[in-house]
């Protein structure tokens, strides 16, 4: 998309507020809605990928060593990864002021 919605004037909007390019939600920083962020104790991570599968936002990314990192620009802090993690290596931490 040439211009993001939040840079457009009202008369520049596409018909019916439709999105014609897939995946454009990635362009919006929605991670600042978060009040808690996930943190991993990587020593306990068994690289199973359950967190990657359950994340509703696609905000968990595979790291080079086979463990997983968080895309904090899009993670909304729902905590599903922490609840589902088999080894309990993910914990939710309050965002600082």
């Amino acid at each position, binding site marked *: 998309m040439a211009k993001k919605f*939040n840079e457009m004037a*009202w*008369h520049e*909007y596409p*018909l*019916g*507020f*439709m999105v014609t390019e*897939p995946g454009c939600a990635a362009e919006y920083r929605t991670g600042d809605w978060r009040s808690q962020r996930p943190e991993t104790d990587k020593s306990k991570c068994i690289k199973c990928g359950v967190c990657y599968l359950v994340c509703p936002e696609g905000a968990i990314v595979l790291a080079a060593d086979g463990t997983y990192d968080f895309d904090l620009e899009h993670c909304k802090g729902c905590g599903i990864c922490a609840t589902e993690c088999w080894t309990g290596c993910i914990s939710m931490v309050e965002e600082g002021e």
Partner: protein
Amino acid sequence: MAKRVGIEVSLAISEAVKQAKVDAIAAYPITPQTHIVEHLSELVADAELDAAFIPVESEHSAMSVCAGTAAAGARTYTATSSQGLALMNEILYIIPALRLPIVMTIANRALSGPISIWNDHSDIMGARDTGWIAIFAENGQEAYDLTLQSFKIAEDHRVLLPISVNIDGFTLSHVIEPHEFIDQQEVDAFLPEYKPAVQLNPDQPVSMGMVGIPEVYAEAKKCQDEVLKNSEAVVKEVFREFGEKFGRHYQVVESYRAEGAETLLLTMGSVSETAMEAIDRLQDVEKRSVGLVRLRLWRPFPSADLLKAVTGCKTLAVLDRAVSFGSPGGPVASEVRSTLYGVDGAPYIASFIAGLGGRDITIADFISIVDQAESMAESNENHQYKMIGVRE
């Protein structure tokens, strides 16, 4: 021009929908809209109309299906009334936001409670702010003509908005009137095949119905309102073309013997024809200076044309057929007051509510409205609204 045929107004509307060659109809039957959709389902069953007739379990589903078929690029029609329109309410807002040009007949009927199947305008007033274009017909011929024109207005790429054609329940829907039908060939020339601007298509995927975060929502609403307001010019354009082609001329604000009149009545819907009779009597028998203004286009509200139509009169008596509970006036009167507020030489505006839940409004009622409005104007009476014919 084709010969006149005596037929029930509901069936004439179905005929217009058939002649518009709609692709999809989803509707749930409700009194007094039933004959329209019953007849359409017969036309589809008899292969006289090549359309998908999708029966549904509620009006909420009817409008949801219409959203889907219109999004897929189908010319889409539905019809409802009263509680049915109320049940559609949630989806009504979404249709114009997605810019889907659905045409819907509303056989206007009072809302519960008490339960009433009879005519007034409370249903459409409840859907007033949903973003649909709303047009009123006064008789069967108009209902037929406006149905055809509505597809053309709605589908214009400068518009792409849904439109409701309002016909008074029973007073119009169940009455047999003479209609002049337009030949199919001429309908086809007037109303070409619908060409959607965007449609759901696996080869060119789009997402409709997106989330609007606070940073982007207001612009979407501003855009929607501007498009709705600008649709008035297209409504006029289509009315003009229709008039030139078929000899029946429509205006967004219509006048009847109103020129130079000191007092004007303002009405909407089929009761305007009774009002004309009252005006004839007041002018011809009683030699009084009273004329009539009729609102055909309710949304977008035709402020400029209304202003022009009432300029010069001293008293303006506005008739409403719905109560806006807790409001300082009837819904139409409130718009009129707002349009005329601060205008130099604006008339005294008297707000009247009558004809609720199917109660007749007679010629005598209109004369009483004029009498009361003139005396209220004389004393500059401060009022909210007066209800006509209510037992005190």
